[in-house]
């Protein structure tokens, strides 16, 4: 934290060169700073950067201007309280690469990233994974190094067991106690786990450029919650359970193809995509 103090006297006096002392809540000396500016009425210090207490809470420190004699005038000691609140660091949790559909009781993997707002080190810290009933179902350990390209994100991969029943479950990750002597607020993040029964049918989707009638590789096929990407032949295979779906096929710079389908057997679908029109500008 940064402090700056002003000192004025009656009558006005130039106290530049005089030193102020900061005493913490225990009365111990926490620092000092000189008065460096005088505008004819008021003296002012330069900025004093100090370390906040390691425990969260309300604090009152004191700034002390010792007695001084200046130009044959005696000035008595002056004190001013410094009240402030220390807040714990914030911890953020991110979760990604969650499969859009997991078959009942099968294993799946997710990635977990944890970061302190002040970029504290979380190396080798452990975190917990909690299910929809609040039970801890797994723990993970953060690595020793920050994730490349980030300023303090620690990333780990966790393997989990899907519930035995179909449904959409909300699970959560809770951040670790930092263990670095600095208070951190509880950090957590919830995520959805879509559990499905074992797919019964194969849907083969062929993505085609409508104008050229050539295959579209890399087209994204979505039949929520199932996803696939087309290969060089424009073919994507999606295994789904029986039921109604909205089949979407999308590709960069193309208009998304959408088609309601009812799946009760293996089937094929052909998606002809048109290029998105370029907006007219004048």
């Amino acid at each position, binding site marked *: 934290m940064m402090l700056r103090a002003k000192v004025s006297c009656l009558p006005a006096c130039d106290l530049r060169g005089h030193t102020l002392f900061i005493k913490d809540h225990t009365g111990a000396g926490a620092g000092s700073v000189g008065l460096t500016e005088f505008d004819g009425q008021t003296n002012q210090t330069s900025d004093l950067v100090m370390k906040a207490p390691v425990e969260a809470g309300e604090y009152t420190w004191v700034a002390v201007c010792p007695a001084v004699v200046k130009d044959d005038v005696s000035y008595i000691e002056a004190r001013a309280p410094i009240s402030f609140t220390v807040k714990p660091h914030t911890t*953020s949790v991110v979760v990604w690469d969650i499969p859009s559909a997991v078959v009942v009781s099968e294993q799946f993997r997710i990635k977990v990233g944890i*970061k302190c707002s002040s970029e504290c080190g979380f190396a080798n810290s452990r975190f917990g994974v909690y299910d929809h009933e609040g039970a801890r179902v797994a723990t993970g350990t953060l690595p020793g190094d920050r994730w490349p*390209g980030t300023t303090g994100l620690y990333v780990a991969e966790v393997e989990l067991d899907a519930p035995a029943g179909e449904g959409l479950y909300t699970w959560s990750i809770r951040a670790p106690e930092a263990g670095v002597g600095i208070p951190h607020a509880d950090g957590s993040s919830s995520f*959805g786990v*879509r559990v499905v029964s074992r797919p019964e049918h194969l849907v083969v989707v062929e993505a085609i450029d409508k104008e050229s009638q050539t295959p579209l590789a890399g087209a994204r096929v979505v039949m*929520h919650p199932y996803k696939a990407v087309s290969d060089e032949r424009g073919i994507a295979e999606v295994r789904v359970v029986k039921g109604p779906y909205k089949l979407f096929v*999308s590709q960069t710079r193309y208009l998304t193809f959408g088609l309601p389908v009812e799946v009760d057997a293996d089937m094929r679908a052909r998606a002809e995509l048109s290029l998105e029109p370029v907006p*007219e500008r004048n």
Partner: protein
Amino acid sequence: MAKKRDTDQKNAKLRGEKAVSRRDFVKSGAAAGAAVFSTSGTALAQVSPVEAIRWDYEVDVVVIGAGCTGLPAAIRARDLGASVIIVEQNFDVGGKMLHSGGQISLGGGDPLQLRDIRGERDAEGFVTAPRQHTVEELTEDTDFLFKDHTDWSVMDAAAQAPYRYNERDLHRAYADNCYATREFLMANYVRMGRISGTHGNGGMSRARRAVTFLMEGPATDIKKGTVSRQDAGIRRVSSSHFAPRFMEDGAKVASPGARVNGAALSRCLEFSAREKGVRFILNCHMDEIIREQQFSGRVVGIRASYSPRFHPQTGARLESLWQNGNIDDRRETIYIRARKAIVIGSGGHANNPQFRSMFYPAWREPAFVSSGWALLGPRGQDASGIIAGMRIGANLAGMHQNLSYGSTFHFPGTLATRDPYTDMLPGHPTFPFRGSTGIVLGTDSFQHLIVVNQVGKRFFNEMLVTVREGGAAFPAGPGKGQPRSGLAHVQGDWRNASADNIRKTYTEPNSIHAALAINEGSKPPDYLSGPIWTIFDRAAVERDKWNINPPFTSPTNGFFFSADTIEELAAKIYKGHEFQRVPLTYLAETVAKWNSYVDRGSDPEFGRGSDAPMYRIEKPPFYAATLYPVWHDSYGGLRINGRAQVVDLQGEPIPGLYAGGEASGGGNQHGLGRALVHGYIAGTNAARESST
């Protein structure tokens, strides 16, 4: 932390300095050393500042603005023997025309319609593309064009009636001068391709639009009709000083090797104007039009001030591409006398939040700018010509017509730039003002992101945010709000405007209005809506193959941020964006809620899921990029008559004062055609005025 702005202070200051009162004018007149006046406020009627002014220049016609109205007006007046000075607030010539698409809808049996009807090529033999329309679709006369432009029955797909309010006299003159204007353009080095469709609000019944082009060649040579590849620009790499926007391929409407856009119009007219002896005072902002008496008598001249622009990094003054004909006057204030007339071609009011909010208070948000903001500078489109006219008694017309065209204000769909309409690339001297080209996304790419307001809340279905309907124009049809297409459109048919037709064709998504709405961060008295942000993740960038590197984004211009967590992203936006006046309190909650909707496969708030797939925003780093709306055209401005004379509140022309284009109102027609014809008419009549 970026300094927060409730008003566009820099612009406001500039406007404040320029909007000098009559009393200030008297003072500045005295300061010019010509005479001593009483500066008492009560003495204004007794003094005669005109007599006291020491004119720095004197010409027949003074043209304000070197754009789409000013250039043709100046050339036309010069052709008729007048001496002409153009004052232009920017450092270069062209105005908005320079970064336009170069599409000119005229009609009424204009020379290009006739050329296509006859199946002919252009005189130089450049145009090899086949005719785009049938003879019937090109055949009309001026009466037919006039009726088309004043067809009360036309309702567009947003249930607006764009033609209903068009000034009759103005559009009669427009129809009568389209032929001459097209000829005039061709006589001044402007090459145009085949007629193809019609511009928004350029009429429903016939094809009237042609695009300007130059042929790619070894060097730029206006007389030969060529532009070098470097000057024409390289797609997604560079623009040039010659053409601020990349010149597109014109093979379809002209021939292989043709490069099209507004540079092929603007630079050709500029070249011709300079060749014919039109003089330019650039970096010179018109501050006041001087009339014999404030509300009576002729206009006699203008007061203008030095308005240079400097490169943001080097500090060097920006200079025009071509110099011949320039008068480099750097005095703070100059007076220019007009012996015959003054033509206001200063553009519209899109960059003046106070003016543009006259009919839509939400647009008082100063964060949002006009199209071409970087090119035109802070004084471009500042309504100064309109305000100067109003101060000497001019009437206004058609201000409400701002609401009658889908492109007037809209989301262009370009992220991470303050100036999202202009796809200017590095190479033009004003690119540093943009800092980034922007990430250009089609409507479908919005499936990969969410859009939030200044407090971090979603407000609309993202798939509809950038959707807009074009103006009502040929070939008409339901997509343009009309029951019948092409030649089948019937002028003045009541069924066009029937409630039944409107129900069938109404498709206004209204996203822009939701974006500008009052939200939890809006504070009185203006209740500014604040910036709009797109939020996405690394997975979106990889999935849809977006290039988020410079020059498409800038790490320093405050319009693009990345962070490891959503909380950190919100903090960075608040700290680093000058118009982000409040924290994005709800952003983390919004993203979490969105991810739960994705898991569920539907969006109960805004209906996503049925129109496109949904994707979680989960993989770091996370990104925020602005999605700024733009105010593109100005409709509404000074009332002018068919002679392009500015009309006062009694319906009488103000002697010697002309205007056109976006400085004028009463004509809701998109594109260049309106301004070019106004300029042609104004130049013709200005030159024919008697000298004083």
